[in-house]
C-alpha cells in the first residue's frame, strides 16, 4: 500500500484553513500545517518530504517571486500551489501551471505529482 502523500500548508487565513479542511480527510493525503514564517524559510521543510506545498499568496511576502524561487530550489520536484484570495482559486506554480477551482482538482494534482506522480524521496 502506497504511503500517503504529505501536503504542507503554510499560513493562517480562512481560505487556507478551508482548503486544509477539504484535504484533511481524503484518502492518500496527509496534511501538515505550518505557520509563523514563510514556507521557504521554515526549517524542517525537507524532513517532511512533501508531495506538495500550498502557500497563501495573501500572506506578507509569501507570494513574491523571490519567495517562490527559494521554495522551488529547496524542494525540487515538489508541487507548489498558491492560493489567490482575490479569485478564490488555487494556482499550480510549478511546471504545468494552471488554475485549480475545486478541492477535487487540488487533490488530483497532488495525486498526480509534479513529475508524473513521483514524490520527493529521501
Amino acid at each position: 500500500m502506497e504511503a500517503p502523500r504529505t501536503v504542507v500548508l503554510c499560513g493562517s487565513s480562512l481560505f487556507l484553513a478551508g482548503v486544509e479542511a477539504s484535504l484533511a480527510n481524503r484518502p492518500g493525503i496527509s496534511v501538515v500545517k505550518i505557520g509563523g514564517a514563510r514556507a521557504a524559510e521554515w526549517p524542517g521543510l525537507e524532513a517532511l518530504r512533501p508531495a506538495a506545498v500550498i502557500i497563501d499568496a495573501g500572506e506578507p511576502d509569501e507570494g513574491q517571486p523571490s519567495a517562490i524561487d527559494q521554495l522551488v530550489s529547496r524542494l525540487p520536484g515538489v508541487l507548489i500551489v498558491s492560493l489567490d484570495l482575490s479569485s478564490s482559486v488555487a494556482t499550480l506554480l510549478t511546471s504545468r501551471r494552471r488554475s485549480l477551482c475545486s478541492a477535487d482538482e487540488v487533490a488530483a494534482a497532488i495525486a498526480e505529482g509534479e513529475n508524473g506522480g513521483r514524490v520527493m524521496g529521501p
Partner: protein
Amino acid sequence: MRVLLVDDHPLFLEGFYNLLTARGIDVVGTAGDGLEALEQARALRPDVILMDIQMPRCSGLEATRLIKAELAETKIVMLTVSADDEDLFAAIKGGATGYLLKNLKADRFFELLAGIARGEAPIAPELAARILSEFAHGGRTATAAPEAEPASLTERQIEVLRLVVQGRSYREIAEALFIAERTVKYHMKEILQTLHLQNRTQAVAYALKSGLIAGEAAYPITPCP
C-alpha cells in the same frame, strides 16, 4: 446556530463548509449566487448567512436586501474580498449585520462567529474606521433614515447606546450598568425599534451622525486585530 453559506467560488465554498462543519457548526446549506441564497433562506430559515458580494445572476448586496425584507430576524454577514466603500455602505443600508474581509485569520473568524450569536456586529477594523469617519462627518451614504428624534430615547437607552458605541459587548454593558445581560438586549431592541434601525452597526452610525453620542467611540464595533 444554523448557518447558510453563499459564495460562487467552489474551492472557497467547499473549504469553508468543511471547516465550519469540522468545528461543529451547523451548516444547513450552501448557495452559489444571490437568487439561490434567497431560495435557500426561505426554505431553511438559517440564523446566520455568510454572504459573498460579487456573484453571478444576483449580487450578495441585492440578495441581502431581498432576504432582510422577508426574513428580518436572519443575520447576514458579508464575507468578501471587497473593501470598497460603496459595497460596505450598501451592505449596511441593506441590513447586513456585519462586514468581514476574506483575508481574516481563521481563528479570529471563529471568535467573531461566536460573537454574532451574542448579538455582536463583526466589522473588519479598517472598515470600521471608515464607517466612523463617514458618519462622524455627515457622510454621503446614510444608513436607513431614522424617523425618530434622539430625544425619544430614554436616559437608560442612551446610556446603553453610548456603551455600544464604545465597542462594549452586551455582557460588559450589563456589568457596567449593574443590570442583567438580557435587560441590555431588551434595551437594545427597544432602541432599534424606536429609531427604526435594523442592527447595532446602524445604531452606532446613527448615534455618531446624529450627535447623540459624540467623540466617545475610539473603537465602536467588535474589534478584529
